[in-house]
């Protein structure tokens, strides 16, 4: 079975501080991993996916197959980063079924 775990529900930091949102997964095959974000009063949207290997809004995430993790990081948080963040997994084969974690609320204080 596929499972995504986001161990922390809430994270509060000050502007300019580094942030790391943890994500661990359970899947025996080769997954695709994603981070989705939901800003206040907006719809859920893709932030980044591991195969793109790109930095979006200063965020990066590296897939660590040994530790089965896909942590989201940003060196200097901004107030506009405050949002709900969801880690999601797609099983091998390109299935459109996404398995989401429970989400984490990031608050960046001024």
């Amino acid at each position: 079975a596929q499972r995504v775990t986001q161990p922390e529900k809430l994270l509060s930091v000050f502007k300019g501080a580094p942030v790391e949102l943890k994500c661990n997964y359970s899947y025996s095959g080769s997954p695709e991993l994603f981070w989705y974000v939901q800003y206040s009063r907006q719809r859920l949207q893709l932030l980044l996916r591991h195969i793109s290997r790109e930095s979006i809004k200063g965020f990066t995430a590296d897939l660590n197959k040994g530790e089965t993790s896909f942590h989201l990081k940003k060196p200097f948080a901004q107030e506009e980063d405050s949002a709900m963040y969801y880690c999601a997994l797609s099983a091998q084969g390109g299935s459109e079924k996404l398995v989401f974690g429970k989400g984490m609320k990031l608050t960046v204080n001024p």
Partner: protein
Amino acid sequence: DAGVTQSPTHLIKTRGQHVTLRCSPISGHKSVSWYQQVLGQGPQFIFQYYEKEERGRGNFPDRFSARQFPNYSSELNVNALLLGDSALYLCASSLEQGPIPLHFGNGTRLTVT
């Protein structure tokens, strides 16, 4: 831009009733999927449709059904509503199949009393 649109935005139903939720994908998108998001949880996959055929089904009872129309819009139907069906129902569309970026709608908030 015209993103994924869902209707209605809110709905209140009584236990045992039936409900139909509607979704219009982004123009040109052929794949539609449905997710249920219970308060405090992440979205949970219900169905995926591509080119009007069911391509994936999550772990939901047969009371849940869906279909996709020739114009790629979709309906999610839930029969014999239970209190536990109260949730935000999200529709997402994408150009093709696969986990390529899903574009989500704002959802339909269903409350079952």
